[in-house]
């Protein structure tokens, strides 16, 4: 079961996305700010990180830079979650080292597609694990 680290400060978004991902068969870890997110990524080494960009303490761009600079976390794909059509945010996200981005509001099928492209399917993986 792929482990996803969701770093998101907004409680509703966090709750919603984590529940939907869990239903799709992902294990979801939660962090509520950039600093804790980086710490958790280092301790838990998830398969993929969903990173909100406007985070307290340290923001998503800085958090991504730190993750991509550290040997133990730099291989973890990061998908930036940015506000609608803010191309500067997206550019900044890609510059900071994000592997992909998706815009909020989250359209789950689209996000899942991007996640699958980076780490392979959630449900599929879990199916195959269950099958194994």
């Amino acid at each position, binding site marked *: 079961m792929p482990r996803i680290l969701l770093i998101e400060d907004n409680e509703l*978004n966090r709750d919603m996305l984590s529940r*939907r991902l869990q239903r799709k068969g992902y294990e979801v870890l939660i962090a509520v700010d950039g600093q804790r997110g980086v710490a958790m990524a280092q301790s838990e080494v998830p398969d993929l990180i969903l990173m909100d960009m406007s985070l307290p303490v340290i923001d998503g761009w800085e958090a991504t830079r730190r993750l991509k600079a550290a040997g133990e976390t730099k291989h973890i794909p990061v998908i930036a979650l940015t*506000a609608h*059509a803010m*191309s500067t945010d997206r550019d900044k996200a890609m510059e900071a080292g994000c592997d992909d981005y998706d*815009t*909020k*509001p989250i359209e789950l099928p689209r996000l899942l597609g991007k996640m699958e492209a980076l780490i392979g399917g959630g449900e599929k993986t879990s199916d195959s694990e269950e099958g194994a």
Partner: protein
Amino acid sequence: MNQKPFVDDIETYAQDIVDTVREPLLMLDTSLRVQSANRAFYETFHVSPEETEDQLIYELGNGQWDIPDLRTLLEDVIPTSSVFNDFELEHSFPRIGRRVMLLNGRKLRAGSHSAIIVLAMEDVTERRRSEADLRAIETYAQDIVDTVREPLLILDATLRVQSGNRAFYRTFRVSAEETENHLIYELGNGQWDIPALRTLLEDIVPKSSVFNDFELEHDFPELGRRVMLLNARMLQAGHHGELVVLAMEDVTERRRAEEEVAKAKEASELANQTKSLFLANMSHELRTPLNAIVGYSEMLQEEAVERELDSFSEDLGKINASGKHLLALINDILDLSKIEAGKMELFLESFDLNTLIDEVAATIQPMVERNSNKLHIDRAADLGGMRADQVKVRQALFNLLSNAAKFTHEGSITLNAERERMDEADWIVFRVTDTGIGLTPEKIVKLFQDFTQADASTTRKFGGTGLGLALTRRFCQMMGGDVTLRSVPGKGSTFTIKLPAIVTEERAEPGGDGAAVSPDVISALDRSTDPHPEPSTCVLVIDDDPSQRDLMKRFLSKDGFCVRSAGSGEEGLRVAREIVPIAITLDVMMPDMDGWAVLEALKADAALREIPVIMLSMVDDPDRGFTLGAADYVTKPVNRRRLSKILKRHSCANPPCPILVVEDDAATRASMRNMLERLGCRVSEAENGEAALAMMQRERPSLIFLDLMMPVMDGFTFAEQVRIHLEWRTIPIVVVTAADLTSEERRRLNGYVGTILKKAGCTKEELLNQVREALDNCAAPRLVAV
């Protein structure tokens, strides 16, 4: 005895002196009789010694010296004081007119002679006159100086005040007494003792005689802090010597106003920034709860479907859809405000077009089905990918498709995508065609105008759709492309998006650019961007000067014409053959092939002969143009109104050109209109010949249906009038008549009209067929008959 000759000598000597004096002199005895006079006297008063000597002075020349003042002098002043000096006498002398004389009198006693009175008169008339003139001039100058509303000081070379004008005294609340003859620096407790002014007056003025607009800010004791604009001139003023005129303009208020404007501008810019920031923040604030609504409703819906709670699922779907709609609106508003603020940016990436189209099609499918429409996707095999802002391309396509879906019922919507090579670059062309209600040409223009005005009020008026179209257009323009629209009322519309296959940053137009805010309305109709050859509806501008071409394009576009241009005669002929424009404007002076040669070539080509050509020239030589077959002649610089008027007479701005029905009976007119509109024609109506002529001035019809018996101006006269106008000579006229024509009537119409239709005695079907035939014969190629 010796003494006598000596005395005689003296007397002669005295007489000689008297005669040499250039002032008239009279010698009177004490009884006031003239003893003698000098030559000057006789010459001045045009009299002889005979009529003068031994006469009483008052009797001289018919009493012309009998002047009360003179009497007083001679009879009262002289006897008591023996002398009077410089008595000024103004008097009308019969022989020499009105004179001013300066009189000097002396009573002399000359040896043995009895006392005589010498009366010397100096004619000072001229002197007084020039003095008066001078005074008048000075007064005049002073009046001017006083009239000037700016305070003025006149200084002499030592910087002492000669005078000030009224404005000066009033402004600085000082009197002439405390000002005149004072050094300027002493004025008003030294309030003018300003170092900068010293430099100006002492260094600059002596060297350069002038300084302009020196701005001086100073605390004046009486006035407070003022900003004065000083101007000085050094003048040579005749006997006054060198003068310095110092003019001071109080610009305190003006500067204050300017500062306020600058402050207001700054404030509004700040407000604008604040607004942008507010919008950005606000949109985030609005989106956050909306995200929750959309997300949770979607989640619940998924769950409801899983648990087979159908009624819940349906309602949750509605919440979800409304949430998404609201989100889309917020996004559109934000995008537009970003474009307005010049903050919209492009995010260029390479992406696959087939994937994009599949995604868009999947998204739009439910909307298409809502009005029972069918969606057809038609894409070229070589479509491949493009580099552009994917989100914006997607949004543009989605907007056009959702628009088509909204205005079409039980019809079809086609998305066509292909790759085209133009100007050595690849372009991606999307066409969204619907079979919906369509738009009239007027509405198309209006639609595009409304695009440009998409502000808050437009938003309220048009809702999401208006903004969607506006955004689509702006997005496409940002990427170096555009949206064009072709529409036929009742038949449907085609929106065409054309984008460079590889959008580059340089190509991308900044969203807030002024040019983009007011896009060339008609460029949207410009067939030059359309690769599909269709009957042309454009005016062709042939001119070798690119700026002139651009100008003409702007001119004509503003008046609703679609414009194609060519930079040389050869190119012009090629384009003319290709598009068959509705009219051509032709520059006379061009290298290689000049306008005259082009005109000849046009008139020699059967396919182009009928196109009205308007010659544009620096030289006024219309005869040559008309001889060669030009429809009209305009001199440069081109007057836009005039050109537009001419073009409208020769063509129409919103092709297809209308068919004009001239008929006094409203019912017949209506049925003709009905019939023609069903054949796909645009129709205009006039109730008599005169109204029809007026209408034709505004818009050239492609064909005229003409009734003969009408009030005001009948059909015969109308047909004659039409044929008198060169530019209308080629418009076919079809006479529709109720009765057989007499031979006389036929003769009157001979050569004027092409076809004669008989209303009476034939069925509607037959009439319809005849009309159709007339259309085919006369105008079919020019009508987009659909």
